[in-house]
């Protein structure tokens, strides 16, 4: 039996990683599977993928997909700076960051914000369960006000919403989804990878061990009951022909810089994903109504990423030769003479 090969000639198995060591039923494992599907379907070349992460349950997951790719599991909350540097060294790499709510919204909030401010070309996935799993169930900064810990403690602080923060900072791609919703996540991951600039994807991912009980607003049952999708998302990569099978007038088409298309089918609300203020309004209204709004909240397909702003040459910086970098003997002698 021969496996189906993608456009770069690889089977789906080529995108698998080591066996997960997370809890059975963990939302993160679902996301890993969605990631494998998205990367396989997009035909990402594994050697061009750089899997970046910080510290925590979420940050372990890059070991569980595309084993043959390079990965960098750095220090807690500092993945954005590592990603920034790696992107500058080789802007041709596909930077895929996986973080958690603690890694992003607590210890890493500063770097998260500055990554967005610089518009580093990377996909930044937050596997958001509102809890510290590895250290056994403390609240994180995304835990909702009034949500209850397994042992009964009540969270008394306002949550930090990574999507709201990202929008405020002018993030060029902001989306939210739910780990159980592969139909929505897979096209969002593909679109995030195709997007040039920082793409933040906040995925609510229930912690089955510490945060999947009745008092939790990040449990499977709560999310299932309160999820409100603003549109059906589908993604057509640049190498596929666009064939719209939705009725005209119900579809929004966003073309990305590489020629890919994001197609959004209207649901209840007619959300324009290119309207940043509308995205902020949708989040606020959802919050007020006790809904979890999912989907592509905002995209700026014309955003200018950091490597472009920095005028990085076409040849990656890491590949520049000595002759590109050192002054010539004449230049050096002339320069030294100016210090006389």
């Amino acid at each position, binding site marked *: 039996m021969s496996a189906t090969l993608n456009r770069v000639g690889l089977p789906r198995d080529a995108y698998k990683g*080591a066996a997960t060591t997370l809890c059975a039923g963990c939302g993160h494992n679902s996301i890993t599977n969605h990631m494998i599907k998205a990367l396989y379907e997009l035909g990402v*070349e*594994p*050697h*061009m993928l*750089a*899997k970046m992460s910080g510290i925590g349950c979420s940050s372990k997951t*890059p*070991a569980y997909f*595309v*084993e*043959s*790719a*390079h*990965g*960098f*599991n*750095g*220090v807690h909350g*500092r993945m*954005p*700076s*590592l*990603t*920034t*540097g*790696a*992107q*500058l*060294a*080789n802007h*041709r*790499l596909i930077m895929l960051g996986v973080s958690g709510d603690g890694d992003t919204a607590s210890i890493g909030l*500063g*770097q998260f914000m*500055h990554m967005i401010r610089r518009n580093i070309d990377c996909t930044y996935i937050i596997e958001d369960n509102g809890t510290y799993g590895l250290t056994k169930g403390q609240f994180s900064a995304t835990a909702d006000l009034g949500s209850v810990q397994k042992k009964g403690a009540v969270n008394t602080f306002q949550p930090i919403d990574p999507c709201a923060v990202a929008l405020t900072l002018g993030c060029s791609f902001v989306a939210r989804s739910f780990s159980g919703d592969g139909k929505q996540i897979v096209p969002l991951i593909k679109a995030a990878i195709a997007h040039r600039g920082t793409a933040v994807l906040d995925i609510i991912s229930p912690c089955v061990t510490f945060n999947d009980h009745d008092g939790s607003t990040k449990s499977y049952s709560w999310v299932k009951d309160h999820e409100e999708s603003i549109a059906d998302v589908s993604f057509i990569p640049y190498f596929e022909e666009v064939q719209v099978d939705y009725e005209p007038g119900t579809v929004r088409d966003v073309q990305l810089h590489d020629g890919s298309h994001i197609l959004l089918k209207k649901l209840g609300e007619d959300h324009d994903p290119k309207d940043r203020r509308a995205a902020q309004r949708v989040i606020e209204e959802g919050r007020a109504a006790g809904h979890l709004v999912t989907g592509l909240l905002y995209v700026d397909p014309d955003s200018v990423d950091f490597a472009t702003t*920095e*005028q*990085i*040459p*076409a040849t*990656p*910086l*890491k*590949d*520049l030769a*000595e002759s590109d*970098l*050192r*002054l010539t*003997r004449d*230049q*050096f*002698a002339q*320069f*030294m*003479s*100016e*210090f*006389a």
Partner: protein
Amino acid sequence: MTDPIINDLTIQAATVNGSGSQTANLVLTRAIFRMGIPVAPKNVFPSNIEGLPTWYQLRVTPQGHMARSDRVDVLVAFNATTWREDLKTVRPGGVVIHEESYSTADARTDLIYYAVPFSKLAKAKIPSETLRKQLANMIYVGIVAGVLGVPWEALEHAVRRQFLSKPKAVQVNLDAIKVGLDYWQDNFSKQDAYRLEPMTGAVEGKVLVEGNQAAALGALMGGVTVAAWYPITPSSSLCEYLIAYADRFRVDEKTGEKRIAVVQAEDELAAVGMAIGAAWAGARAMTSTSGPGISLMAEFAGLAYYAEVPVVIFDIQRIGPSTGLPTRTSQGDVAFAYTLSHGDTKHIVLLPGSVEECYEFGRDAFDYADRFQTPVFVLSDLDLGMNLWMTPAFQYPDKPFDRGKVLSKEDLERLAGEWGRYQDVDGDGIPYRTLPGTDHPAAGYFTRGSGHDEHARYTESAALYAGNMDRLNRKFETARKAIPAPVVDETAKSPVGLIAFGSTHVAVVEARARLAESGRAFDYMRVRALPLSSEVAEFVHRHERVYVVEQNRDGQMFDLIRLALPSELTERLRSIRHYDGQPVPADAIIEPLMETEAIPA
């Protein structure tokens, strides 16, 4: 009148920060340098933008001593609030050039005063109101030139050199100097003994360079392509010079593309993180900071050590602890930088002892980092980094880049994909690495700061953990033999030796010269890197007593050397420490040395 004192004096200009005095000081320095006389300027400045007192000390000696002297021969008193205190620093018989309105009633009587109406002269003779405050400083250059005998040609040259990029400013500045010179000639007759006379043979082929300029040039020649930094005194100018040099030498004129990325990060955590990320992806990457930044970088330094990522970290030391004195110098980060981060972490630390070595080590640090796949610290300091130093012109590199053990696609094909990121194939402790983007299915591996086996896979195995730590030690031992060796001068053949490093070197040179003149010669070893060379213990072995001279309170290098010595040698070690934030003068070495080493009558 006493015998003339020729070309051997220290001028101290006491001015107000932000008043434009620095330009005047530099013109004076360049003019004297133009006369062929060795100069050693030191800027003592406040952590302030404008208004606080600042001092510029310009030492000239026929021998070319570069250390600070704490005795002033010529005081230019330009700051009303400090001038009474400033008087105390002047040698008996010294000169005081001061604003006429400062009262000398009950001032020291063993000094020679030249009162100059600077404010009135500036008002009367400098037409531009906007430039008057700045140019008033140039009037004192004219007065000093008159007192000491600096020829007009030298002044003219210095002004042109100083305003290379602003030729329009040359004439107004020369005019202001002329105001001072004329006033001197019309109103004074020389009362003091100090003279400057042109020399030959002392400064030919020499240039004036700041250590941070030298390090920036070194980094550029070392092939840096990603630099991330966060502003901090006294390190900021290193990256600012790097930006300026890169704008000149690394920009494609046609496309505007830059063959470097210099990023001002949001803090030092991000700065070193960006450098490590870039180095991991294959760029030559650096950051530059000072003590507080080093503290913040501790966690990432441990990651780079353990995950074996090459990165260059410049630490332009200032005096701590904590914020300390942000504009004063120190060698107080040595012990901390050496073992920066938790757990069993240790680093290669380069210790430049001159601006020439700031250039060479700043350049070669990238080779060491790549070859040993580890962070390399370059420990300069405020004195070295921010002052101008007379130096031989730097040499063009005679070696190509050493990118270390990097496996290419072709290498992996040859190995049929059989390799392990942390395998010690060659027995030197140094593993092979691949870069992201290498088009081979076996190229990828998972870099992590958690426990890992030879294939970079997560492990909690006791044996694998310990084995890897032992290999890291082997790598460190390989590095110990490869990094810059100590420079030894045992021509004195003395039973007593001195050990120093970094900017302390110049004070030791002067102390040894002066002691030798009085018949007491000392052998000397200058340490240039950590881990310490085995030569250090051998040097101690050959001497009865060895004094370690350094600029910190706790004798950090003294401790490091003591730890490296066999126990029977540790008692031979003595410590001389200078830690007031001012660059160490030779007297601070000679005096304690003579207390214990004076020959009994």
